[in-house]
């Protein structure tokens, strides 16, 4: 079980695990639950340059579509092929096997939320 307090969060319901200049990104359990049964994920190409705040992918459920925003500036290092093949991992393990992309960060880290701040945000 991932220690959720070690992660950073965005207001777009994404989480980041920051290790050196690499960020692993996924969507939170709250977002996965709101979306419902995820049936398809569209992720950016490995090696593509991404810019914080820009849409880089989509997460589709049977009833809605969520956009994946790049949380940081950088280059896509790796995408989770397992989640492309089995999109239900986003629902069953949003903080674990349901991770989406790894990004090699360049530039400064934008302001991100702590676990407490994120929980407060979703409690509203």
């Amino acid at each position, binding site marked *: 079980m991932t220690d959720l307090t070690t992660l950073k969060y965005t207001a777009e319901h994404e989480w980041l695990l920051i290790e050196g200049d690499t960020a692993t990104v996924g969507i939170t359990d709250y977002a996965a639950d709101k979306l419902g*049964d995820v*049936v*398809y994920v569209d992720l950016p190409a490995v090696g593509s340059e991404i810019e914080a705040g820009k849409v880089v992918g989509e997460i*589709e*459920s*049977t*009833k*809605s579509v969520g956009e994946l925003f790049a949380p940081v500036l950088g280059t896509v290092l790796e995408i989770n092929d397992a989640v492309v093949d*089995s*999109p239900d991992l986003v629902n069953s393990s949003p903080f674990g096997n349901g991770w989406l992309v790894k990004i090699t960060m360049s530039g400064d880290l934008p302001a991100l939320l702590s676990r407490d701040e994120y929980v407060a945000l979703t409690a509203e």
Partner: protein
Amino acid sequence: MSVVESGPGLVTGSAAEGFVDRHIGTTPEDQKTMLDAIGQPSVEALMRAAVPDSIHAQALGSSILPSPIGEQEALVELRSLASRNTVNRSFLGLGYYGTVTPAVIQRNVLENPSWYTAYTPYQPEISQGRLEALINFQTMVAELTGLTTANASMLDESTAVVEGMLLARRASKSASNRFVVDTDALPQTRALLKGRAAAVGIELVELPLATTGVDALPEAFGVFVQYPGATGNVFDPAAIVDRIHLGGGIAVVAADLLALTLLRAPGEFGADVAVGTSQRFGVPMGFGGPHAGYMAVRTGLERQLPGRLVGVSQDAVGNPAYRLSLQTREQHIRREKATSNICTAQVLLAVMASMYAVYHGPWGLKHIATRTHRMATDLAAGAQAAGVEVENDVFFDTLLLSVPGRAHELVARAHDAGYLLTLVDEGRISLSTDETTTRDDLDRLGEILGFAVPSESRSSLPDDLLRTSDYLTHPVFRTHRSETSMMRYLKHLADKDYALDRGMIPLGSCTMKLNAATEMAAVTWPEFANIHPFAPASDVEGYLELIGQLEGWLSEVTGYDTVSLQPNAGSQGELAGLLAIRGFHLANGDDARTVCLIPQSAHGTNAASAVLAGLRVVVVACDDAGDVDLDDLRAKVAEHALELAALMVTYPSTHGVYEHDIRAITEAVHEAGGQVYVDGANLNALLGFARFGEFGGDVSHLNLHKTFCIPHGGGGPGVGPVAAKAHLAPFLPGHPLAQQADRRTGAPAAAAGDRLAHAGVPVSAAPYGSPSILPISWAYVRMMGTQGLTDATGAAVLAANYVASRLRDHYPVLYSGESGLVAHECILDLRPLRDATGVTVDDVAKRLIDYGFHAPTMSFPVAGTLMVEPTESEDLAEIDRFVEAMIAIKAEADRVGAGEWSADDSPLRGAPHTAEAVIAGEWSAAYTREEAVYPLKALVRSKYWPPVRRIDQAWGDRNLFCACPPVEAFA
């Protein structure tokens, strides 16, 4: 003396009142009961209280709507109109061909309310019959075109080509903004492409692709090839396709499905997308429609498909079950980012075409194609032997004959003899053979053209264009060859489905009212069915008269000056209206006016249509009551004053409420120079009481398949006329092959006999859209008259308010107007129930199936709600049956809330229950078998048994499969 008892309405009423009484389900006595329940003294008082004073319809000095007549009289008038059409033998081709509708399909599908009164299969558990028929259609199209996945049909061929172009732009890897179009494309398709490409800024390049070397092809994101071409020419597009792929582009091919039984399939020469029409598979020409267009794509492009897509999933116990796939592509979810603005398909016509293939099988289709081709080769041989040049030496069914200086004379002589040929230019004519062509036709044509037609000729199709691959291999296309078997297959499928012939379909925003038998009668008359859309004006006087009358009537009742019946769906009406607005601004030099304001509560289609008209969507907030937030509207108008093109607003609102501020809203937009588009989807709440044109509308679309009785057909056909003020008339849909460019006007203000020209971008392949179903709406208006239409609106609004008042204590009613009243529909809020018990809106919707009902509209316009629209056509007894089912279901949910059942082990979550579910094996549920399937005693004798348990939506989307499953899957 004996006393003869009569029912209400039959003694005193005239024949005309007889139809109004048949159409409106509630009797005056019933209405009294309902009025008492809602605390209103009369229907008039109810409508005065519900409809804001500021928009009440003005009294008209004179009306062009004639006094209503009865059913028999209406049929006599329709016969008279029909007799003014002349059914000549059509050799016109150009995408429309004579075909024989097998009688078993005409009687058991087209004329069978089990098929034509069904709705779009949003509740798949009670739609398995037509979903199977649509899977057959998709399989047929995919196999004939040699591609992987076909959708459940398109509105017509030309709009399918436009969608193919838009798909190519989305999916292409090319950075180019250019789309290359074959000059041998159908003329109507070229006209649509031109207008639609301009609206979204695509550059079109037309080239004669059959003779263009690949090196002369410009860089482009896609290419379009007509196969065979409009002139009949067939060439191998493989080299063109390969070259476009080199630049990352997409190849779109319009292919004739019948020809594909003989010719190489588009998928086999590399096409990415195939489009076309299935009209010649047993669907009458009908002066242009309705017909089912099609689209198929190669692997990898499935998610780019517009429109409906049926797929295979499984139900709660793992049995295969069909349902609509990948709905997140569509406009109701993605709004302005959707793959298309298309909401619906041409289901009834796609079912007919698929059944034509089921009935004839692969050998039968090949036989029809071979015979059609043979007729053309014989004609060609006769022409060549007599020295008449056939310009296209490779053809399937269409010949281009060189007749220098004689083209006009020959076409006229043929017409005199009862034959229609296409005049290409002064020196050339073309003619197309089809399934109905006879040897006698060939001999008579030969006489006119001056040559003898041999009966032994050789095909000119080169070997490398011939099809060698198999098609229609699934057993369904090889089993039902006898009429008995076919009849039973159609009955077997129809029995699985819930249509209006079984009970009420209270779908909010869908207006599932009666489609009367008399209204339907004329659709299949040969004088309406067997007319080519490009027949000369002198052949279609009856049609033009009927169309003119209906356009005038619709103008009057909506307060507009002119109407175009061309759009084949509400979405296409929206597009036509917005294109008219854009055209108007451009003509005034207002190029910058591109912002379209759309309230948050709007149907997603509005936003998707705006984008396709080249407009930019700006969302206007709604308040807690669901009304447009007037302050936010004013702020947005001010912010975009110079760029404001239009506001799109639905009235009454999508929340089923008459907004009191509507005049203030339309005035604010007009003051800033914007145009007002009033979405007429909810006209059934207004007809006779208010007119869009009088409270600020500049343009609207109507849905004849809602308010004006055209049946929903299980998800199409539809007709979405666009109605407008005179200043927009020049920008309403024109058509290069229309029999008349101008229309009579229905404006109360205009002098009788005034005519307005429509000269804008065409939005349908045929000039008048789907004329063969217009007699339905014509008959409805003719038999109802002004008063009958008004009474129907009153009865519909009364029924909705009655349902709201009876259910309010059990489920909160989410929105109502200032008077506490709803319009013609009401939204029941199930979110409090979910929070209290865990029972969801899905559970209630599926449980209604166990009670013998089709669910209301789910989660539109608000997630977690049900929107109920009873319409005027339901009897009070049926409305009460529905109300009582809803109350009983609430009581079940309360037992969950009380802890008697868990939500997961309740009859609500277990719903719907099949016979197998309660009979086979051990019963281990917390509720009884009787509670599962006979929750009311009355159901014992009238039970509708769903064929499958609740369907797993996610499984089907994760494991996409959109063709007939192998027979073993059902073992």
